[in-house]
C-alpha cells in the first residue's frame, strides 16, 4: 500500500524517498529502483542473512566491551 507520508522536503520541494542503500555504497542499477518505502516485512528475519549474522556474534562480546565514561 502506498504510504502517503513517504516524502521529505528537499530544496526543490518534496521528493520521494529512494530505496534502501547498501552501506558499502555500491552503485545501484535500474532494477534496484522501486517507488516509495514499503511496509517492513516483519514476519521474521530468519529466512535471510540476518539470522546468520546474529548467530555469528560472539555471545561474550558485550562482556568484553569496555569504554570510559564520555559526555
Amino acid at each position, binding site marked *: 500500500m502506498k504510504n502517503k507520508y513517504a516524502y521529505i522536503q528537499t530544496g526543490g520541494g*518534496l521528493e520521494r*524517498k*529512494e530505496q534502501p542503500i547498501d552501506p558499502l555504497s555500491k552503485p545501484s542499477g535500474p532494477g534496484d529502483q522501486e517507488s516509495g518505502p514499503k511496509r517492513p516485512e516483519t514476519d521474521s528475519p*530468519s529466512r535471510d542473512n540476518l539470522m546468520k549474522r546474529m548467530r*555469528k556474534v560472539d555471545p*561474550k562480546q558485550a562482556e568484553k*566491551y569496555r*569504554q*570510559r*565514561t564520555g559526555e
Partner: protein
Amino acid sequence: MNSIRLFGIETEYGIAREDVETADPVVESMELVRAYLDGHFTRRWDYQGEHPHEDQRGFRVTELAQDKEEDLFAEQDAHRPFSFHEMKSDLVLPNGARFYNDHTHPEYSTPECRSLKDMVAHDRAGERILWIAAQRRNKVLGGPMVQLYKNNTDFHGHSYGCHDNYLVSRTLNFENLARGLMPFLVSRQLIAGAGKVGREAQERGFVPGGFQLSQRADFMETELGVDTMHNRPILNTRDEPHANRERYRRLHLIVGDANMCEYATALKIGTTRVVLDMIAGGLLPPCELDSPVQAIQALSRDPELNTLVKRKTGGMISGLDIQREYLNLARKFFIEMDEETNWILCEWEHVLDLLERDRLQLVGKIDWVTKWWLLETFSQAEAVGWDDPWLASLDLEYHNLDPDRSLFFGLEAEGRTTPLCQEQEIQKAMKHGPLDTRGGLRGLCVQRFEKDITSIQWEGVHFRGQNGGLHLDLLDHLEPVSVAQCRSVIEDAETPFDMMEAMVLKNS
C-alpha cells in the same frame, strides 16, 4: 516565533580493539581520528570559545562533577609522549564538521544544518567518515582489529553521548524553555530511543534482562544541570552559544540516544524543533510531571508503553499521551506551515498511532522497535532468555559501523529500513557543508585555504597574515542570505587576503 533554524548533532562513538586484552583508549581514539588525515596533523582548533562552566540560569559553576576524574585522567595522560593538542587531534573537515578525540571517544560533530534532509545526510556522512578512518587504521594494524559503535553504553555503567543542539533566541526565558520542554524530553524516547537490553547505573555496573526504550535514560540523574559526564541532567544548562551571546542561546541536549534509523534522527530533531518553535511562540506545556527523572526511567523500562507517570497537578499520564498532547498543541499552533513542518507533524502522528496499534510497522524506522524485533526473533529461534549475555552482544552489534557485521546495516542491505536521503546526498555531505549555513562556509574555508588557517572554531576562522593575521567572523552569518553572500566572496577569492578585502568592500 524563532525564525532561525539551525541544528546539529555531536556523536561520541564507542571504540574497541578486538586483538588485545587491554588497549589504551586515548591512543586508540587519537590514532583513529588521525587515520582520516592524508598528511600530518596540524593543530588548528581554537578552544577559546568553549565555556562548559557557564550556566544558562545566569551563573558560572566553579567545578563540574567530572573535574576530579578528568584531573586524574589528565595526570595519567601526562605520562604519554603526546601533548594535549596531539591527543585531542581536533580536525575541521572540508564539510565543516569537527572530528576529534573527546574523552577517549572519536567524536563527530556535524556542521550546522537548516533542514532535516541535510541533518540526516550529515549524520550519515559522519558514520561513513568514521568507517573510512577505521578501515585505514585497520590496514595499518593488519586486520579488522578496531571496531566502532554508534551507541551510548558499554553495558558496564559507562555512557557516552549523542547531543542534539538547537540555536534559540536569547529572549526566550530559560525557565520557560525548561518548563515547556521537560515532559516532551521525558517522553521523546518513544520515537527516538535506540533500545537497550538490561539496566545500568552510572559506573555501578549492568543488570541483565529485559529490554528498554532508551540507552541513556538509566544515566539521567537530575532534571537540570550543567554537568554532562556525572549527575547527568535531562536538560543540560551549559551556556555556550557559539553565536552572539546577547542574541542567542544554544540548547545542548544530552538526553538523547544515537540513532541508526534515518527516520528516527529526522523525527527526533524535527519534533524538538517544532516544540521549540511553540515555546518561542508562548506555549505552555500541556502537562507537567511530578518527577521527571523517575518518569524518564519508568517510561524507558516499559516497551509495552502501558506505564503511567505522575502529573504535577495530580493524576497519571502515559508517555504516548504526553507526546499526543504536544502534537495536538502543534496542530493548533502551526496553522500555515512549510513543507518540512508538515512532514514532521504527519510523521509524528503516524508513529504515535502505530506505536499504539501496530508497532511492527515501525521496524526500520524507529530504532528501539527495530532492535526489539530483531532480538525477540533471535531469542525465540535460539531459545535464549533476555538475560542471556548474547542478547546484550547483539544489542551492541546493532550499532557496529562495519557493514559486514552491523545488524542495522544488515537490515538496511535487505531493504527493510526507511532511508530519507539518497546515496549521492550522503557522498556530497562527506565533502561539502550545507549551502545555507555557516557550517558550509567553514568547510569552504578548509577546502580553499587550509594551509593558511592558523586557528578555527564554530564562530570563526583565522588566517595567517601580517599584523596578527586575518579573521573571518562567522558569528553573525546565520541567515541564508548572509551565508550566500559570504559564500560567493570565499568562492571568488584567490587568497584569504583577497577574500577579506572583498568582504570589507561588500560591507562598506
